[in-house]
């Protein structure tokens, strides 16, 4: 068996000469013996190979288009076995590469390893570094999520400011006049084809020249010479394993790479930041006022990069080498400082829940500048938390049996009442209405709190609790229901019939026994009327409380009159359960119909035109008709937005199983 193997190796060697190649590759002399300080270049090669391997497997599952990029990354991350690990390794190894590059670079400059005859190899190294940075930039966009989209948008916008050909460069990079399919296809071709191809070519030259000139040895007499194989190779492998362990550790710790909400060109993402290793450039831009921006974005970074290419020639003299080392540490120190400053600017508020009180407690609320910085940081953290929240929501729907439609995950975002409702409500309703759960404050809905409402609080609208409050003499005149400032329903208003009626029902002369009877009756009415809403949250209760509902309906239609002194019930004023018999509709003009009260269709029709005969008629003194016209162009709200608002108010959206 062994003989067969030997024969095979010999046969191959005669025909290929591979033994010589191997010997050449492995038996490099390491003067002074193998050392840990020589491992950094090798770890970079291993890191790159890791990116090639993980990248090719990611490629097998990735699809670059605006309707499939986020979607395919979602699938890799959440549906494919081990996908999160694959993507996580690719993501964190890219960051490790930046760190390793910095170490390798510092070491080369520190050791003066760029001196003749190694100038060209130093330049090849710089080219490789730029290629790696290019890979990072292009890779950031590929998931097509809010984070990558908006950060890259700033990058290409800056590219358009490049002197001379900026506009053309942006168009070529973006693949058109604005972001779209061809932005992704181009970024992907660069990321997975052009740049790795160039990297392999330059890496081959880099390694060839490295071998040609050998290691730069500080102290050849440190120990006996050793061979690359196996002595240095062992150290290199251990170091590479260490890097991989760190990367896998980070991946597991963070549960893989983040995927924020799908890119939405129309939804301002107020937390657009580049990847951490570009933060210093981001922060640097804040220093340049007005048109000086071009200095911060191009001229100074360009000159610094150009200066790096000159290092081998500057370093020919002792003082020049000293200058190079000082310059490099100045650059790294500056970058570290700017990075820290950027992170501090963004996170000084601490959390998205922080308030000015926290700032005062920390003794920082003394200057307007601090206040502004606090607000900016707070907005950043809030935008980030919201994006995280939105991402969780979209991912939850995508993972459900609903899946993602062919039009992409953005459709899920646009069609989800849970995500769209608050925005639409804020824009159209919150000027007058409040929306706040007094028992459970939700930070995300804090925007919707109206401190001076001029209309009822719509939280839980149509629920048993909400309707019971309207039938309660104390709550109905509260600010959450009919007692808001300027209400026509109370005091000297024009439409006090309802409040008067509820107060009559609970007149103070009532004996406690009778009072209790009326309270029970009102509870039954609340259950019956709330059943008209067909709220998803009460579906089970509506089924199990059939008996109470029937009793409540009977009370509404005259039963109540027998209990109270004034002999009235709901149907004396409101239309309810009269089938086709609407001949007497005039009688009810100005009081809302109770059939289907607060159901989806009832609410849609009501918001369309509250002054309709079925609703408040001429009594409507304040609420605009949002969609009264058949011609949609004339309406303030389109049908889709109307449906989303109503579904959101009614809590009618997909809810994943807990």
């Amino acid at each position, binding site marked *: 068996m062994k003989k067969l193997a030997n024969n095979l190796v010999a046969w191959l060697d005669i025909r290929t000469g591979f033994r010589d190649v191997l010997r050449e590759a492995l038996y490099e002399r390491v003067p002074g013996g193998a050392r840990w300080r020589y491992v950094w270049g090798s770890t970079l090669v291993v890191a790159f190979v890791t990116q090639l391997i993980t990248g090719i497997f990611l490629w097998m599952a990735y699809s670059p288009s605006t309707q499939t990029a986020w979607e395919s990354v979602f699938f890799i991350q959440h549906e494919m076995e081990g996908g999160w690990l694959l993507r996580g390794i690719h993501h964190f190894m890219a960051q490790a590469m930046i760190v390793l590059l910095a170490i390798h670079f510092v070491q080369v400059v520190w050791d003066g390893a760029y001196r003749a005859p190694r100038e060209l190899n130093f330049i090849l190294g710089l080219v490789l570094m730029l290629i790696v940075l290019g890979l990072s930039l292009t890779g950031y966009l590929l998931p097509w999520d809010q984070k990558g989209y908006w950060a890259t948008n700033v990058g290409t916008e800056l590219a358009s400011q490049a002197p001379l050909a900026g506009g053309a460069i942006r168009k070529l990079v973006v693949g058109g006049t604005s972001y779209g399919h061809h932005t992704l296809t181009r970024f992907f071709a660069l990321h997975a084809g052009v740049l790795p191809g160039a990297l392999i070519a330059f890496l081959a030259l880099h390694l060839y020249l490295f071998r040609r000139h050998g290691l730069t040895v500080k102290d050849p007499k440190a120990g006996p010479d050793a061979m690359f194989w196996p002595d240095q190779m062992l150290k290199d492998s251990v170091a590479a394993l260490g890097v991989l362990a760190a990367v896998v550790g980070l991946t597991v710790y963070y549960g893989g790479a983040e995927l924020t909400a799908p890119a939405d060109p129309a939804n*301002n993402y*107020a937390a657009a930041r580049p990847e951490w290793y570009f933060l210093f450039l981001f922060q640097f831009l804040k220093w340049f006022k007005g*048109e000086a921006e071009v200095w911060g974005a191009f001229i100074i970074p360009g000159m610094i990069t150009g200066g790096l290419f000159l290092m081998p020639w500057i370093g020919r003299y002792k003082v020049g080498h000293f200058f190079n080392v000082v310059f490099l540490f100045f650059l790294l120190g500056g970058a570290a400082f700017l990075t820290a400053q950027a992170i501090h600017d963004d996170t000084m508020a601490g959390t998205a829940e922080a308030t000015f009180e926290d700032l005062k407690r920390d003794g920082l609320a003394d200057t307007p500048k601090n206040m502004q910085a606090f607000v900016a940081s707070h*907005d950043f953290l809030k935008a980030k938390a919201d994006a995280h929240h939105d991402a969780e929501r979209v991912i939850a729907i995508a993972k459900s049996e609903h899946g993602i439609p062919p039009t992409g995950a953005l459709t899920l975002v646009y069609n989800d009442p849970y995500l769209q409702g608050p925005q639409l409500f804020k824009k159209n309703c919150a000027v007058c209405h409040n929306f706040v759960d007094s028992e459970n404050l939700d930070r995300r809905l804090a925007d919707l709190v109206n401190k001076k409402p001029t209309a009822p609080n719509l939280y839980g609208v149509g629920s048993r609790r909400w309707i019971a409050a309207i039938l309660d003499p104390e709550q109905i005149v509260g600010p959450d229901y009919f007692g808001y400032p300027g209400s026509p329903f109370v005091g000297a208003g024009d439409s006090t019939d309802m409040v008067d009626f509820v107060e009559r029902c609970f007149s103070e002369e009532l004996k406690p026994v009778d009072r209790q009877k009326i309270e029970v009756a009102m509870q039954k009415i609340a259950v019956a009327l709330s059943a008209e809403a067909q709220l998803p949250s009460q579906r089970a209760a509506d089924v199990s409380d059939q008996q109470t509902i029937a009793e409540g309906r009977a009370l509404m239609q005259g039963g109540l009159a027998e209990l109270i002194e004034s002999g009235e019930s709901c149907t004396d004023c409101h239309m309810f359960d009269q089938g086709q018999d609407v001949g007497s509709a005039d009688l009810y003009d100005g009081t809302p119909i109770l059939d289907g009260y607060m159901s989806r269709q009832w609410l849609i029709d009501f918001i369309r035109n509250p002054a309709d005969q079925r609703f408040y008629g001429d009594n409507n003194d304040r609420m605009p008709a949002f969609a009264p016209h058949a011609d949609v*162009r*004339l309406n303030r709200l389109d049908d889709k937005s109307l449906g989303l608002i109503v579904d959101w108010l009614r809590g009618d959206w997909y809810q994943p199983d807990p």
Partner: protein
Amino acid sequence: MADCEQPADDSADDSAGDSERNRRSFFAILAGGLTLLAPLGAGICAFLSPLFRRVRSPMVRVALLSQVPADGKPHSFPVVTDWRDAWNHYPQKKIGAVYLIRQPGGELPIAFTAKCPHAGCAIGYSAADEKFKCPCHTSVFNIDGSRARGDQEVAPRGMDALEVTLNSLEPEVEGGDPVTEILVKFIDYQTGHIQKKPIA
């Protein structure tokens, strides 16, 4: 081995042989070059195609006049229009956002694009201190779009105002009040310059 395959002795060549060889070298390079250039040229041609695309700046209906209260405050509206992205046509796609401001007593609103003139981030409005703020590089603008700190601002110019026109629509019901819609010319402006220049 290699020695045996040396071509015939160079010194024996006359000048005619030299020119013959030069000609062959020339055609070898020409043929090889052309073979490579044709696919490369076609590729570069296709690659450059975005340069021939022009930005469309559509007049877009963004709101009804009745939706913008005359309170002198900015109100944000999405820009929704038919949109083409390479091979896809999107009917009524949200492509951006504008702020509309109507002065008390005034009719015609002014419109600002939400795109920051510094680096293109989307500007937000902070009602607390009545300022527009860009979340990226700290640009702040007054409610009239001018830069809050003048030349100390990183943004090279104030927010970009967009052309606004009003259009009266007749309601389908006879005798109904006419409805006015607000149209905005949604232009994408270059960032980073003092002058306001549309992206071509």
